[in-house]
């Protein structure tokens, strides 16, 4: 009964160290690694819920699929690899070490004669003489030779390429070493603490200083990889580690202050470099050192490496002009905003929260897309690799904000500061979207002769103003009719139509007009009615502008093409306001930019172990693959000589070498 566990252990040992097991492990590890490349790792958990639904989300979470490479089953496969490789070394070590030293001089003559690669030659030379010559030859070929006297002659035992075996040790222990180094830099310590309940992930969105000690790691934590964003002129003494659906706060042994963050651009507008000027202080406030960190040029201090990882807005101050889009006036009001902060807007319809999300000083847009000459083969064949970046254009600053209503519903907006030219006319653009994975849809507000949107806003206010409608309708009717029709029933009819059209439009834009036509006009006449209404609307809008300008003590608009387009664009844009989704528009007047630099901080004590392992691995692989291990025996007796050769690996080179040695023996024995 005693033997059972023993033989089980032995069988396990055999299995773990077997080549087939190694091949299976390598294949399984390869396949398992695919999982994490197919499924995006470490996303916010909400994204996964949306993607998979609540049921599968939980299943996948249990399987650790959101952080596969730290999941216990993945670590188990790696552990198997380490154990199997170690056992394999353990098992082979004694044999291989002996083999490296041994000349295998105890082979019997019969077994030499039974070798697949053996060759016999007759000779008249004395065994010692031939042995000396053969030894010189073999040594010249790079063999280590041992000459052993036998009662009837000599045995030469030679070996070459013993380092092949050394390579095996180096490469395979390197695997173990690299895995251990990797583990040292992993989060095993935290995982253990989490299991024991001494540490916990923080999932709340609270200021760093309020994060309790159970979610904080001390400066003595041996390994971490965290990141922090520091606005210009501020400093940070912690880094954040993303874990599962939360984070941990890593207290740093020093304070990092950011003096300046710079982005340089190529002439084409693509970014050329990101650099942060940082200062390190101790916790007492004494300056330790100053440095510039750039991509590919980290700063290493006190075993912690600080890298340039990203950048963001650090709280740019925005000076804005706000417009109440549905107020029947042209008035605007001033708004001050700071990126990453909120502001409250009070209105009759309830309170809104303005959340300023981001500011971008540049926006490089592709304004043309297509490669113009792609159809012309010759132009590419003899063509120039010099890119014409004429499609790329910097369209200036923009800022992003969310408008959240009292029910918590939010839409995101992206407003450009500078106007954009589209189809030969200039507009101010405001993008809107309902969720982050949508593209922005743009509202285009036409500019007036002064290059501003004031005329648009004035006309909009006038069109929304019900009190002005009778006057506008009257002016419109007078304009539309010859003098002899003034005061007739036709004029009244026209006035009525204009008032109706204006009222409908002010209620819901073109959609409202369309809806009205659909319910009131028979199908056959709809098209005609639509174009009539449109005409009325445009002409009435022109009159509205007259009225609005007069009220604002401005000169009357010229009745020219430019004004025509301005009116038409205003109508289009106004109609879009009804689906714009916010009661206000914010125009960026000026800004005071504050950038923030995203730094990554790492302490990885395992790195040197991994690098050393890598060195051994490289050496080991080269030794194994390029040092050919082989042995030669030459048994010389009076009258004949028997050459035998063996190698662990039979390649064509080996066959060639054997032939060469056989020929050499033939010529030596002559």
């Amino acid at each position, binding site marked *: 009964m005693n033997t059972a566990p023993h033989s089980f252990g032995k069988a396990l040992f055999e299995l773990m160290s077997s080549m087939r097991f190694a091949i299976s492990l*390598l294949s399984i590890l390869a396949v398992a690694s695919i999982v994490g490349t197919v499924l995006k790792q470490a996303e916010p958990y909400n994204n996964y819920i949306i993607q998979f639904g609540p049921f599968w989300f939980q299943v996948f979470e249990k399987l650790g699929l959101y952080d596969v490479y730290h999941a216990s089953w993945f670590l188990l496969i790696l552990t198997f690899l380490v154990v199997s490789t170690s056992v394999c070394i353990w098992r082979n070590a004694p044999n291989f070490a002996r083999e490296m030293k041994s000349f295998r001089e105890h082979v019997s003559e019969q077994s030499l004669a039974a070798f697949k690669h053996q060759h016999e030659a007759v000779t008249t030379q004395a065994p010692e003489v031939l042995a000396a010559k053969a030894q010189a030859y073999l040594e010249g070929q790079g063999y280590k030779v041992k000459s052993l006297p036998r009662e009837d002659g000599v045995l030469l035992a030679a070996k070459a390429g013993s380092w092949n075996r050394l390579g095996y040790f180096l490469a395979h222990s390197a695997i173990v070493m690299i895995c251990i180094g990797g583990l040292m830099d992993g989060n095993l310590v935290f995982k253990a603490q989490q299991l024991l309940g001494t540490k916990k992930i923080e999932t709340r969105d609270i200021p760093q200083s309020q994060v309790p000690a159970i979610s904080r790691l001390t400066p003595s934590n041996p390994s971490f990889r965290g990141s922090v964003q520091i606005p210009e002129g501020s400093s940070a003494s912690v880094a954040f580690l993303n874990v599962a659906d939360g984070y941990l706060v890593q207290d740093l042994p020093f304070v990092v202050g950011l003096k300046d963050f710079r982005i340089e651009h190529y002439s084409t507008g693509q970014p050329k470099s990101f650099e942060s000027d940082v200062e390190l202080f101790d916790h007492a406030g004494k300056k330790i050192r100053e440095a510039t960190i750039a991509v590919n040029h980290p700063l290493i201090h006190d075993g912690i490496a600080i890298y340039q990882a990203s950048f963001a807005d650090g709280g740019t101050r925005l000076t804005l002009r706000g417009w109440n889009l549905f107020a029947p006036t042209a008035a605007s009001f001033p708004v001050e905003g700071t990126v990453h902060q909120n502001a409250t807007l009070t209105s009759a319809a309830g309170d809104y929260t303005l959340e300023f999300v981001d500011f971008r000083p540049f926006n490089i847009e592709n304004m043309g897309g297509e490669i113009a000459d792609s159809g012309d083969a010759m132009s590419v064949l003899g063509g*120039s690799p010099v890119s014409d970046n004429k499609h790329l254009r910097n369209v200036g600053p923009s800022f992003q904000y969310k408008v959240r209503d009292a029910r918590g519903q939010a839409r995101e907006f992206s407003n450009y500061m500078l106007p954009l030219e589209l189809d030969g006319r200039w507009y101010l653009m405001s993008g809107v979207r309902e969720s982050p994975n949508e593209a922005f849809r743009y509202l285009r507000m036409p500019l007036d002769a002064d290059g501003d949107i004031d005329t648009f806003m004035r006309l909009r206010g006038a069109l929304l103003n019900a009190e002005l409608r009778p006057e506008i309708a009257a002016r419109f009717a007078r304009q539309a009719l010859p003098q002899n029709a003034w005061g007739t029933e036709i004029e009244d009819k026209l006035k009525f139509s204009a008032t109706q059209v204006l009222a409908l439009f002010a209620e819901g834009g073109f959609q409202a007009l369309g809806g009205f036509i659909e319910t009131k006009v028979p199908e056959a006449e709809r098209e005609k009615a639509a174009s009539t209404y449109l005409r009325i609307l445009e002409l009435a809008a022109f009159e509205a502008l007259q009225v609005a300008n007069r009220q604002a003590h401005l000169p009357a608009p010229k009745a020219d093409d430019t004004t025509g387009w301005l009116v038409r664009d205003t109508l289009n844009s106004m109609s879009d306001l009804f689906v714009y989704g916010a009661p206000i528009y914010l125009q960026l007047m000026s800004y005071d930019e504050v950038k923030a630099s995203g730094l990554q901080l790492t302490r990885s004590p395992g790195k040197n172990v991994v690098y050393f392992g890598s060195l051994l691995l490289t050496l080991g692989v080269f030794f194994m693959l390029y040092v050919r291990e082989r042995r030669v025996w030459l048994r010389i007796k009076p009258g004949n000589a028997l050459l035998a050769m063996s190698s662990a690996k039979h390649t064509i080179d080996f066959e060639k070498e054997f032939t060469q040695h056989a020929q050499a023996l033939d010529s*030596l024995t002559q």
Partner: protein
Amino acid sequence: MELALNQPAPLLKRLSWFDWLFAVVVAAGSLFALSRFGEYMDIYEKAILLAAIPSLAVFGWFWKPFRPLFLAVGAISLFAISQYQGNLARMEEAFFLKYLISSQAAIMWMCALFGLATIAYWGGLLGRSGFVLKTGTSLTWSAVALGFVGLMVRWYESYLIGTDVGHIPVSNLYEVFVLFCLITAMMYLYYEARYQTRQLGAFVLLVISAAVGFILWYTFDRGAHEIQPLVPALKSWWMKLHVPANFIGYGSFSLSAMLGVGYLLAQRGILASRLPKLEVIDDMMYKAIAIGFAFFTIATILGAMWAAEAWGGYWSWDPKETWALIVWLNYAAWLHIRLVKGLRGAMLAWWAVVGLFVTTFAFLGVNMFLSGLHSYGEL
């Protein structure tokens, strides 16, 4: 004593005057480049340049045909550079540049020559014509030469666009595809001479032609041949080591896969009488995977060291990294299978062929389908 039979002479004695001349030219060229452009290089780049002198010299001694190739590429590239007279616009005016050796023209010639070489190899294989096969070899050599000229000139052109734009042409998918064609072809040419067999060129040139097809599509459809400035993450001397090492890996894995195809066909009796013996193909396959595995190991380690410097961690399980690991594990498994009795032959050939798909995914698929830190060269 005539005992010197087959005795290898010491390396230095085996060298001819041409070997020495080659070494001198390499050293002189590199030192000239160092003195002329040293101020634009950092200490690592200078070290790389200096280390290139003995490496290239020894490589030329080890593989003799490399010497004329190197000298020809150098001479033609210098000629092309002189034609520019420091003015990029000469690309469209100077006859040689416009039709032959501006980077884009040279690379298009490379594509054409690889296409012709493929046809020649197949013609020679099917028609059992040694002469036609030999033509295939010559065409492949010419393609390699022009491809390298294309890259060298492109390097120069990038500096003409702007000194801050200039960089070694291994920075985007277009450039590395050219590199891939060249390395695969060179490795094949080496084994072709070593094993004295030309028939397998028909298979190897297929994978190169596929890459050429991609280059052409990428150029015509996407304008990928345009030289773009480097994103900050790629501005590092590591790129000069990491990328070429990787492509030696990719190149030799592709080579082995095509040899695997040849093996499987021959084993089923298809073209068997025209192809080399199975043992020969098997041996070549092993050699190709061995060199590929060794360089891929180095490339991955260099990549890890670069990542440690650029991204803050030597291993981030980024999709490209992970796929490199998968490729590496795949060939580690392949090498181990060879050591198990009874699993050789067709099994290994199949595994090598499947390896091409794994490699291609790591090389191309990751850029197309997965996103991550390695965001250069998206399609």
